[in-house]
């Protein structure tokens, strides 16, 4: 393996690891203030929504709005299954099944 590749991958590892680690280091010394805890409580839903929605309704390079992607309309029944069953495993299996079906139907 070339030295150059190894140096690059170690560099990638360091710049990935440091942002993952800094908050654990900072918040171990002192707990964050109340407003920050309140803010961080909204972070999971925000991140999930910010990852998910563009993945469902945009596609192509450069990205464009595309509401007709199978990702999008398979998401609707999948969402309903999640709401009504509250089952992570069930939702994942139904989502996969519907997406597979959408592919078979040539959508």
């Amino acid at each position, binding site marked *: 393996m070339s030295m150059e590749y190894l140096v690059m991958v170690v560099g*990638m590892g360091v710049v990935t690891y440091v942002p993952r*680690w800094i908050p*654990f280091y900072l918040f171990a010394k002192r707990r964050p203030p109340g407003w920050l805890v309140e803010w961080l409580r909204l972070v999971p839903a925000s991140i999930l929504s910010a990852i998910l*929605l563009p993945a469902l309704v945009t596609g192509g390079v450069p990205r464009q709005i595309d509401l007709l992607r199978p990702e999008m309309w398979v998401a609707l029944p999948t969402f309903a299954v*999640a709401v009504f069953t509250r089952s992570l495993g069930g939702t994942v299996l139904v989502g996969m099944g519907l997406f597979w*079906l959408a592919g078979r139907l040539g959508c």
Partner: protein
Amino acid sequence: MRLIKTGGRRSVLIDGLIVVWPICLGYAPIGLAFGVLAQKAGLDALQIGIMSLLVFAGSAQFIAVSMLSGGAGAAPIVLATFLVNLRHLLMSSSLAVQLPRMRPGKAAFFAYGVTDESFALNTLHFQKGCWDADRALVVNQTANFVWLVMTVLGGYIGPLIPAGAAGIDYALIAMFICLLVFQLKNRLVVVTAGIAGASAVLLALLIPGNAYIILASVFAATAGVMLKRFVQ
């Protein structure tokens, strides 16, 4: 999911493994796909394995490999990796607040396994209340192991796997949909998630790369806190 909190090592391992399977299912096709692309970009199995072990971040690894095949040098690839993975800063902050205090060494090890997927899954179980750092670590490290194995395997057998087999490409999206549903516990969270999704779509159309995730999340969480203050 019924989990009983006990001190036994065996139950820690089993609880973690019971919970982590959707991530493993999702990593399988993505890991294989990465291995195929990396191999096409000229990396051998050892090089793929070392990248998966040291970086352990799907999207950044895909970008690195596509930049490598485009002839990019190390510096721009490391910079791109940094920018793409900066979103983990938010996730680790959120986890650091949820997790009980840990020894610095353990926290340092835990931090290594923070990904979009493990963050979302562990957050769900911490909020349910029957979760601890050890079980979360099992989730992190199992996901890490599956990612490592699948990416290396992709370098060997990837081209043999038919595209779109069993809808497996949808596993992670479906998991994120369900985890988001679990987060929608009150009106404030619903509104915040709505703001995050709408602004993320808008930003995704305007700027290339994945900076929209961190920008939209920061914007939405801030708007949510301000909204709460305003309503009170």
